[in-house]
C-alpha cells in the first residue's frame, strides 16, 4: 500500500534516442511538480540501476510508478529490482495509441504534440496515484 510511507516513487525512461523517452520524463515531471506534488517524487533511474542506497531506500517496499518509453520497460525493471512492492506501469507507446492524432518530436525540447502526450500520460499516472490512495484509505 502507498499509505503511510510518504511519497510514491516515480521512475521514468532515461533513453535519449527517441521522443517517447523524452515524453516519459516530461510526464514524470508534470505528475510530480504539477498534478500530485504532495504524493509523488521522481527517483533517478541511473541511481536505482547502480544500487544507490538512498534511492533504493525510497523505493524498497513501496508502491511505485514507472513511466516507460519503450517495450524494454527499463524504468519498471529498475523499480522492481530495487524492491518496490508493486510497480504500476504507464507505457508511453500505449498512451500515444490512445491519442492517435499526436506526433511527438524532439528530445531535448519536445514539440507541442510531445508535450500534449506527456500531459496525457501524467494524467493517467495521477489517476493511478488516486487509486492507490483510495486503496490505502486516504482518499
Amino acid at each position, binding site marked *: 500500500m502507498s499509505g503511510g510511507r510518504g511519497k510514491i516513487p516515480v521512475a521514468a*525512461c532515461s533513453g535519449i534516442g527517441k521522443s517517447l523517452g523524452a515524453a516519459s520524463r516530461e510526464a514524470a515531471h508534470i505528475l510530480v511538480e504539477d498534478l500530485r506534488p504532495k504524493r509523488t517524487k521522481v527517483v533517478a533511474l*541511473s541511481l536505482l540501476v547502480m544500487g544507490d542506497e538512498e534511492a533504493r531506500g525510497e523505493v524498497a517496499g513501496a508502491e511505485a510508478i514507472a513511466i516507460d518509453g519503450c517495450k*524494454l520497460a527499463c524504468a519498471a525493471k529498475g523499480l522492481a529490482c530495487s524492491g518496490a512492492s508493486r510497480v504500476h506501469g504507464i507505457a508511453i507507446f500505449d498512451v500515444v495509441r490512445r491519442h492517435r492524432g499526436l506526433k511527438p518530436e524532439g528530445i531535448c525540447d519536445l514539440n507541442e504534440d510531445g508535450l500534449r502526450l506527456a500531459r496525457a500520460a501524467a494524467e493517467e499516472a495521477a489517476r493511478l496515484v488516486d487509486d492507490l490512495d483510495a486503496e490505502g484509505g486516504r482518499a
Partner: protein
Amino acid sequence: MPDLPKRKVGLIACSGEELAEGTVTRRAVRRVLETLRPDETVTLCLPLFLAGGEGERAFARHYPTIAVDGCDKRCAARATEKHSARPAASVVVTAIAAAYGRGGELGTARRLGPRGLALAEDVAMKIAEEVDAVLEKPRKSRRIETGGKG
C-alpha cells in the same frame, strides 16, 4: 581494400532525472550527436545495461565509450565499467561547472535556465574534444578523467 566499418565512440549520459545536472548531460550528449560530431558518435542507453540490453553491452565492449555524468556518483561511468568495459574517458558536469566557473542556478531537471543551457554547451564542447582525442589514439593508451577517478 575491404570497406571496414567506421570507428565510432559511444556516449553514455547518466540522464539523472532528479537533478538539473542530469538534464545537462542529456542536452550536451544530444548536441554532440546531432551537431558537433554526428559521424563519429552514437548514444547508448544507460538503464539498458541493467535491463540486459546486449546490443548496448556488446558495443561498449568493442568500441570506445565516453561516460557523461551529472554528479560525482558517476553512475554512467561505473555502470559502463561494470557491465562492459572501462570508458575511454569520463566527463562530470559538476567538475566542468567548477572548472569553467559556471556556478549558480542551473534551472530545474525539467527546464534548464540560461546558466544550465550555457553549461550544457561547455560540456558538449568538452565531450567533442574527448571524442577527437579518443579517435586519434589507440584505445588502451587513452585514459582521460575529467572530474573523478576512474
